[in-house]
């Protein structure tokens, strides 16, 4: 399981889990699950187009996903962008269908774009993932305060001079970068599941953002490591294990939150009574 050819898989999975854990926390906080699904899924059109005109597919993926992020951010109004996201997604998919109809070379790679081929990662594919990962994490650190403010209390953010629209754009571009470069390696499915399940679970366990981010990264790492090990043992697709375990994480988090809410009612009301009494 830890043979030479597996080292790359472990490395890339670890990097991806860290990126997904951090970026995913904000995806969950802002309710941006749809864009996080649509951008990497639609970006495959960029790869198809790039292969059609003979350019590097990574460049095609990057350009398409950033364009999609900008379009969603620009056309969406007042935080409601589900219609625009759906339309951007189908436009990109339709372009992909057009590109594919004009070429016969690319088709077998669709499956790997959607489901990934993490067990066959080449060493030269690692560098772009590392670079993009560092860029994304840097952007999140740089944007941290306005991002948290505009996600939790947009009105307060506005009052403090945070341009919510601009933050939304910047965040969508971060999502685009985080997903685009990882899609050829781990697949659109895996990165999406990792961005939703572990952060959602982490948020159920704690309300403090820094702690939740750490926890989210930890759960994502545990998920992806267990998925690789299980996939290696059973030969089943890794995406299945990541998808199933992410859903299980979410279920556990919801269960924990419900249990705690039931237990926490008496002490909380006592505290309330004390405060009111004081």
């Amino acid at each position, binding site marked *: 399981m830890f043979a030479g050819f597996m080292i790359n898989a472990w490395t890339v999975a670890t990097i991806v889990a860290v990126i997904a854990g951090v970026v995913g926390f904000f995806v969950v906080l802002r309710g941006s699950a*749809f864009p*996080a699904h649509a951008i990497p899924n639609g970006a495959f059109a960029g790869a198809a187009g790039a292969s059609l005109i003979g350019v590097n597919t990574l460049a095609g993926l990057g350009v398409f996903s950033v364009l999609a992020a900008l379009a969603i951010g620009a056309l969406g109004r007042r935080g409601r962008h*589900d219609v625009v996201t759906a*339309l951007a997604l*189908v436009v990109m998919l339709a372009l992909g*269908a057009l590109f594919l109809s004009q070429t016969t070379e690319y088709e077998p790679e669709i499956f790997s774009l959607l489901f990934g081929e993490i067990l066959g990662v080449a060493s030269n594919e690692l560098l772009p993932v590392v670079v993009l990962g560092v860029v994304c994490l840097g952007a999140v650190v740089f944007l941290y305060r306005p991002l948290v403010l505009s996600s939790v209390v947009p009105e307060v953010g506005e009052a403090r001079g945070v341009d919510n629209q601009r933050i939304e754009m910047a965040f969508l571009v971060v999502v685009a970068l985080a997903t685009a470069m990882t899609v050829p390696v781990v697949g659109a499915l895996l990165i999406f599941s990792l961005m939703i399940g572990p952060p959602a679970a982490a948020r159920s366990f704690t309300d403090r953002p820094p702690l939740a981010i750490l926890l989210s990264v930890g759960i994502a790492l545990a998920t992806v490591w267990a998925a690789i090990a299980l996939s290696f043992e059973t030969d089943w697709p890794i995406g*299945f294990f990541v998808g199933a375990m992410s859903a299980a994480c979410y279920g556990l988090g919801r269960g924990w939150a419900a249990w705690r809410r039931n237990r926490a009612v008496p002490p909380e009301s006592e505290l309330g009574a004390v405060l009111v009494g004081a």
Partner: protein
Amino acid sequence: MRWVFEPGFFSSHPVHVAFVVGSIVAVVSAVVGVFTVMRGQSFAGHSLADVSTAGGSGAFLVGVNPLFGFVAGGVAGAGAMEMIGVHRARGRDLATGVVLGASIGLAALFLYLGTTRSATTGASQQILFGSIFSTTSSTLWIVALFSSLCLGIMATIHRPLLLSSVSTDIAAARGVSVRVVGLLYMFALALAVGLSSLAIGAILSTALLIGPPAIALRLTKRIGWTMVAACSTGVVATLLGVLLAYDSYYWSSSHAYWPVSFFIVVIIFAGYLCTELPLVRALTTSRTDTAMVSAAPAAVDP
């Protein structure tokens, strides 16, 4: 006319079937989609196509007719989304995402097991890019059957559904069981999406579900007119797309058809962008924005 309709257009059997199937699916999608857009459930509407795919590939694996797997998968997914669904839109999208991730994972597993056992590939591709031209006359009956089932559900619940889509509080105060209506609506959505993604592919399914209703809701706020506008936009886009795809064979010397989905999606997206134009918005927003809200309570009055 010869420049518009290339030779053989009206006598081609696949074109006839595409016209009929495309129109039925466009109408059903538009009727269901108006509520999808109003309720902010576009993500669920899109995801159900992928969720149905998981059911379809599972049925394929155990040797059942994939159509039943499609419908069963979609309905089960819709139920799961609605059951764990939270009332706020953010939480709802999250629940949708979790169901979506889990079911694509299942689809990956089913496709893997299916391809290693029986060496059939291309199933996922066919579903994702499934073409309106590959529909056969026999699927026409199934399409008609499930369409009428879906429209039947919509006709039954349209009043409480409209009210609870506009305001859950008013609906609850008037004795509407918001959760039951929501669940029934999700079943109708699952039927519509499963049906359309099987008949015309997942891309077009989402495009016809969201695009025409989004355009219609920009143009008018009255529910009747919204329905009419959405249905006609969807049908016109579909028929125009079929025509252009047929004509595209003669456009280049290589004689390859361009995909129908490309044309339909481009037409719909162009239409949506047009509603962003200042002129269109000035014409449409001058009318009362509250028309639907004030009409809705009246609609459920005995």
